[in-house]
């Protein structure tokens, strides 16, 4: 059952990784504006042919 120790530590490390990812996301400003990106994603990069 020693494997339990290894698994627990592994799972905690993974969880810590997610926590770090969350902190990084907050730090990089992703939570500062939660609306504009949802509009921005819909803009076309290339100009489409005009009518």
């Amino acid at each position, binding site marked *: 059952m020693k494997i339990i120790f290894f698994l*627990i530590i592994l*799972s905690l490390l993974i969880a810590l990784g*997610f*926590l770090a990812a969350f902190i990084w996301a907050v730090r990089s400003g992703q939570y*500062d*504006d939660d609306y*504009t990106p949802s*509009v921005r994603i819909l803009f076309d990069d290339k100009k489409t042919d005009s009518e």
Partner: protein
Amino acid sequence: MPIVLTNQGAVQEKKAAAKAGTTCYHCGEVCPDESILLDDKYFCCEGCRMVYEVLNANDLTDFYRLGPNPGTSLRAGRREQYAWLDDEGIASRLVDFENDKIAKVTFYLPNIHCASCIWLLENLYKLDSGVMASKVNFLKKEAYITYDKASLSLRKVAELLAIIGYAPAIHFGSLEEPRQQAPVDRRFYYQLGVAGFAFGNIMLLSFPEYLGLAEAGYQTWFGYLNLLLALPVVVYSGRGYLQSAWYGLRNGVLGIDLPISLGMLTLFLRSAYEIIAGAGSGYLDSLAGLVFFLLIGKWFQQRTYHRLSFERDYKSYFPVAATIRKNGEEKSIALNKLKVGDTVIIKNQELIPADGLLIRGTGNIDYSFVTGEAEPVAKRAGDQLFAGGRQMGDTLELQLTREVSQSYLTQLWNDEVFTKETAAGASEFANMVGKYFTGVVLVIALVTLFYWLPKDMGLAINAFTAVLIIACPCAAALSVPFTLGNSLTLLAGKGMYIKNTQVIENLVKIDTIVFDKTGTITDGHSARISYEGDPLSEAEEAAVRSVAYHSSHPVSQKIALLLSDHPLTEVTGFAEVTGTGVSGEVGGMKVAIGKSEKGGAQLTVNGRERGRFLLRNRFRAGLEELIAGWRQHFSMLILSGDDDREKSKLQGLFAEAEMHFRQSPKDKLDFIKQRQAEGRRVMMIGDGLNDAGALKQSNVGLVISENTNNFTPACDAILDARQFTYLPQLMTFIKWSMRMVYGAYLLALGYNIAGMSFAVQGVLSPVVAAILMPLSSLTIVLFGIGSTRMLAGRYLTKITPPRDDSHLTGE
């Protein structure tokens, strides 16, 4: 859902225009004629056509495909001057970051209103290669722009934005306030993240214990891991509560944070003791859950209405700079550097920055924002002008008699009510309950301790700590954030924006309501126009309409609307002199509409005076019902800066003693103070800068706002003017929301008593604690959200939400 507030007037205009015929390709407003044509597209004014040309030349016409007529009208025609941005002292205050090559700046652009705006502003680099990057925050209406200092200056960036119709709004206040620092806000997300992380993991590691699967070896190992995980929860995530409790204790205030902190610390210390001594596995799962839930509650309660501010003073209304004449030279100077005796030049549409004597020019000053009076006031050389008015007409020269901060209007902000810090933070009701609660809990805990002490030392300590743990009023602490927090969201959907949950608690205690008159109970913008004088023939009325139709002046527009059942005919020799009037010839008839000395607009046909168009303020719809309904609950008063001209119209609604006229801004403030000294709890309902003192002094200051994008003075709540009729229903909803909080407290108390009965006997096991705590919290959360939703169904469903014309949110 984002809160989108826009000018309703503009929507209606656009819709009306769509029916009337030709509309501007750029902004969608109705074109006065079909004279401005380019590429088969009509424009309402040269400004709009120019924007189209600029965009067309730079391959940016996609702007028009993202939504119909996305532009902002440039017909109002005021092109901001940004010469003062060349001033190094001003520029350095506005720039966020700067090095030898580039600079970054944040501009507030009030005209941002649709997806096309975002697209255009983020493609700014195509218009000018000096722009290196631009990013828009739609809800805040801000653009973050990085530019190359070699080819652009701050002034040029501002002017570039102004050309395409997004004139940055820069106010006096932006020179003083430190730039908003985002990290303060982010810290909360970190705390929440850490608490959530620890909560999840501790729960997992505690499962063996719950299920009775724990084996001796693992149990201690899991225990230590839990302890390690719980440590940051207490010292980092729960820090706010510990600090607030400690601060309260030092100041002799027992708030609800104290029993929460007591519970948190007892949980942690007892668990640590059990784990280290090998006596058990502790209650760390409950601890982490408690902190996590509390922070979620806080998050839920934090309500930010992106475009509204409850903290503005005159500084966010006044411009940054003024033009002065010194030694025969005109130059821009920062407003706070203006001195008594300076000669200030005020052009059409500019604001008077400080009190002074008019030395040259004819004043036609719009004080509507200061006093609420709709009609501009005429002034001659030698007259005293007060700060805050806007000149509509010729260029004026003004000799200052006072500095900006000492002027008649602005000195109001020197009153102590604006300088003293108001105690912010926790709920008053929760603190009051917390005070008694803490006392009772401590007594029960001590009685338990001394009851068991002679019999069994270990059990005594057990029972003592268990009482402190179970009594931790986390459920009660969640009730205000969730119940009232949800109410705030529901109210915002109906056009009432409340600063925080504390305002709701204050609102239910109100016994006196003070109304401002103009702009508050009267509808300043839809003043009714009527004609007085010689009767006009059909042909004359048609001619008057046609002439008035060509002017964008609000009074002309109202005249045109009044006579809108007549056909439009061709006008020759149309002329408009700002501040004086309009004239033109229709079928040989010379029509002139101009400012009258006696008030209103004078109509002259073929050189003969025929009569006057008079503007009359109209009471807001539903005012009578509102006053009648509130009579039995509140004592109500009118506090107006105006003279008593309209007194007779109010007589049916208010008694003689309830109406007070000719009140200066300071008088209003003192009036409220006096009522409060008599033990009254006052709600002030106002709209303008002259109400600012009263709004701040009153227990609840409510601002009625025609256009929530515009400036609103500091207050506790903002009501969209279109929702004024629904005020009684909104107030009833608020009253019932508060009752639901009391209900939730009773529920929480029930849980606490049930838990306590286990605790005093010393038989509280971690399992029971682990179940009872989240269960009670969850009940309170569901009760809070569910009950307010039900109330909304009862009181708010009949209220139509204020519509907006945003292309993003749709109808």
